């Protein structure tokens, strides 16, 4: 299982930022807000979200738009949006390295489909996790904590967390699961995105094991990083 490595607040011109690396995926997320929106973005009763996903190379296309959409579905459910009416929260997700850069840095793709571009589970889960830290760093109010993980079911029907691209390509199915976390327990499903061939039991058991993994991420990574931030941000009298 590859480790999540997180650093907070390395960027200067935004309200919050985080850098996360897991496996061969590296991503930086910045959060600016609440700021004044453009007229067409403004919502009268709640904050509007502008989510921008940028790939590590090339220009952003339909793949990035799809990632933006999935991220939006998760983030609009966890950000306390009524707290910032008529305001904008701008979230930029910049990938610096992905599976594609590692395993397909130069291959010719003409007429092939089984390429890294068809698998976005690692990128999606890394982006969701990184957004959590960046939002926390920007002090944006959240209803709950949330964590995501990526699971592949390999040829022997065994689950593999954060599988590398060659494993993903051979896997029977792959899943991205995001849970919200209340009282250190994974409670509500925020997102499940599954592809491949799988049975109902496999789907349900994957969701189960993902909830355990999300709890682990929360207790072993998220809490530690945030406690450190709180220690650094405030002066605590003994």
């Amino acid at each position, binding site marked *: 299982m590859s480790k999540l490595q997180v650093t907070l607040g390395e960027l200067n011109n935004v309200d919050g930022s985080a850098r996360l690396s897991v496996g061969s995926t590296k991503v930086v997320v910045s959060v600016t807000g609440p700021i004044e929106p453009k007229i067409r973005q403004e919502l009268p009763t709640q904050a509007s979200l502008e989510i921008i996903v940028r790939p590590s190379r090339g220009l952003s296309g339909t793949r990035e738009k*799809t990632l933006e959409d999935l991220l939006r579905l998760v983030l609009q*459910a966890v950000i306390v949006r009524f707290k910032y009416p008529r305001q904008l929260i701008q979230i930029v997700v910049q990938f610096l390295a992905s599976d594609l850069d590692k395993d397909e840095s130069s291959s010719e793709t003409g007429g092939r489909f*089984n390429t890294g571009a068809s698998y976005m589970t690692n990128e999606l889960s890394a982006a969701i996790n990184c957004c959590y830290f960046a939002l926390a760093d920007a002090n944006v109010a959240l209803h709950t904590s949330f964590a995501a993980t990526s699971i592949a079911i390999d040829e022997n029907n065994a689950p593999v967390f954060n599988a590398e691209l060659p494993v993903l390509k051979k896997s029977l199915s792959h899943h991205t699961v995001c849970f919200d976390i209340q009282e250190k327990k994974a409670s*509500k499903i925020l997102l499940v995105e*599954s592809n*491949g*061939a799988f049975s109902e039991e496999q789907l349900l058991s994957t969701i189960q094991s993902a909830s355990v993994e999300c709890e682990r991420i929360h207790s072993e990574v998220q809490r530690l990083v945030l406690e450190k931030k709180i220690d650094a941000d405030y002066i605590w009298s003994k």
Partner: protein
Amino acid sequence: MSYPQTVFPPQVLSRIAPDLLLQRHLVQGLRPSLRKFDEFRPLVSTPGTFNDVGTNSVVGLATVRNGDAFAFCGISLGVVETSKSPEFFEELNDEEYASIYPVVEISRGRSGAPTDEEMILSQTLHDTIFHLKLIPLLLLSVTPGYQILEEDSALTILYPQDMGDEVDQESFQELNISKKNFRYILYAHIKVFSRSGPLFDLVHYATIEALKNVSLPRVYLADSGIDPNIRIPIRSRGNFGHLTQAEQRFYVDERKDIASPLKLSLDAAVSSTFGVVELMDQDESRSILLADLEGEAEEFCSESRINVTASGESLRHVTIIGGGANVTLDTIQNALQIARERKFA
């Protein structure tokens, strides 16, 4: 003092308070469209052909209707040169599958750059069709024929696969001077009319139906009419060379009888979408599934969604969005159950 009570007709109420409208319907056990909670609108498909309309590259066509929404999907062909590294040939086996390049267009009486919804639908469709393992990649390899001008100035097209072993394959190999490999790629053009709810099910169904009646024509290389001996001199920074004009151009063989139907590896794969909403019923709330969302009120209120693409018992694609009403494992099982029992006309 008394005020006259304002009464809003349902159309107005659905715009100003969609959640209220939906709740009032649901308490009655009905949806605004008067369907039952787990009732799908019938999906009707009409296979169409463009074959009578002269030569063109549309190789598969379907028109699909779901309630008031229509979608029209045409599959067209392209040919690409495939890469050729030794490892790649080892890899190419029955286990590789292809996808399509879809362009979804939702007519709204406007033109211009594609909207986010169209882009996301296209990308999701591309990924889903790939992960469905629907189109075996081997079926898409192209063996081009050659048009040969015989001495009596008649044109004939020779195909390697038509010739038995006795014909000397060697001389044929010489024709294919470049020894390049080619493959068909499938483009899907999907046009949606009168959108009335989430579109993935409709677009997905239209694409699969169109793919089902795809037949791949043969292609051949013809004399381009340009003498390959004509060379155009090119100069670039001290270097000097020639470009030959014998560019390979593929022609589609019009004969339908020798076109081969595309055998998909699955009989059917259908996508079903459910909305999950919280129903306030006598002080207790429970979440219910609404099959096949329709209309503004339902689309707006069901922030939680479940999308299932299944082929028989096997699940191929599942998306669960749980931002709104709580999606429990029971809800998921329930949705899978309804999706499996769905009947088709």
